């Protein structure tokens, strides 16, 4: 699906509808492909007033009780797990994970946590292509 930035809020509403009450959304795509831009649109849809900033260094940013933003870019999945972060993904709400890989998807499957994978590719200067799947 090819979308421009202004169309992202509608796309995020569809993602929320697919997940129901909550769950994990694994975001995959290169640097500067627009993963954080998608999270910003997701936050707008949840009426989050705080500025969504990158969790690359902090690993996790929390917005109220319902939106959690993670980034595995710097340290990888093993590090994330060894800090005890997996239990964070069980909290009620939406958990958006940048740079989540196949291993994370496998763990989510195993743990029975509702999840979606969104692949993002830059397909034009003002648009990105999004592919959503359940695994």
């Amino acid at each position, binding site marked *: 699906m090819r979308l421009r930035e202004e169309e992202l809020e509608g796309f995020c509403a569809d993602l929320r509808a697919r997940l129901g009450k909550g769950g994990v959304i694994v975001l995959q795509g290169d640097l500067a492909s627009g993963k954080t831009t998608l999270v910003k649109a997701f936050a707008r849809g949840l009426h989050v007033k*705080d500025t969504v*900033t*990158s969790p690359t*260094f902090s690993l996790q940013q929390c917005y109220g009780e319902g939106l959690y933003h993670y980034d595995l870019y710097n340290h990888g999945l*093993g590090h994330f797990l*060894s800090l*005890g*972060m*997996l239990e*964070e993904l069980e909290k009620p709400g939406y958990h958006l994970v940048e740079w989540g890989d196949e291993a994370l998807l496998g763990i989510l499957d195993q743990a029975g946590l509702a999840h979606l994978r969104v692949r993002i590719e830059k397909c034009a200067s003002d648009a990105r292509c999004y592919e959503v799947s359940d695994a």
Partner: protein
Amino acid sequence: MILSIESSCDDSSIAITEIATKKLLFHQKISQEQQHAHYGGVVPELASRLHAEALPRILEQCRPYFAQLKAVAVTSEPGLSVTLIEGVTMAKALCMALQIPLIGVNHLKGHIYSLFIERESCFPLTVLLVSGGHTQLIEAKSLDEMEVVASTMDDSFGESFDKAAKMMQLGYPGGPIIESLARSGDAKRYSLPLPLKQHSSIAFSYSGLKNAVRLLIDSADQEEYPHIAASFQSAATEHLIHQLKRYFKKHPPKTFAIVGGASANLHLRNRVTEVLTPYKAELLLTPLFYCSDNAAMIGRIAVELYLCQRFTPINSLHVSPRSKL
């Protein structure tokens, strides 16, 4: 003496600070990044809490000081809930066992007090906090009066260096790598956009610059990397400088400080020094060793809180992932 604990993210650290002299008597830090290598393909259900292992190992070395402790201080916000709780639990247990008061500390305020490790504090200050996780301009009038007057809208200054280095496949951490490579490059070779040039309020943004660098790298040969590194470092720094100049017009600095890991960047230090010269403002810098997360800075602010008798009842200290100064 005060025992202080820091576990807000990757690092487990404990310090002992003497109250009367502010002297740092003990300080140790175990980086989770180094520890993690042993775990390899970790099974999540069995995953150990690295802080739960590292903190007791450091605490064991502090036993000789226990009888002289007057309080225990701990970072309680902001940070990762699951790691903050490890430090807070240990602090509470120590306070109960030793019958001494507890002091909850804000991690960001701790970074500001990293300027005053083993020395007296001085206020007011204008502080630029630049690290992998933060890019903030803070007006610090006193221990209790600190206000964030500008912050990043997306990526941080330090993170943009990490990502530029990663895109050129140069390794991690990116700050020193880019700085070193930039020395052999021509900063004027490429014109990169200055973020938020026309923005009405004072703020920082590094996301657009990251995109511009990516496009540049995609179309360039490897021999151009030193020039890209130099052009990028220049643009990233000039963005900070541009915003600082705008801020200083209305709020001339008297004492200015740069704290956080990215304050090690010499190009940034030199440019800030040039901007401060007309104002005859003093520049304070945190010793490099204490730029990243550490318990020494938590102990230093805890001394001030102890002297004001600002203790936190054990039952009311909770961890918080977000916080305001």
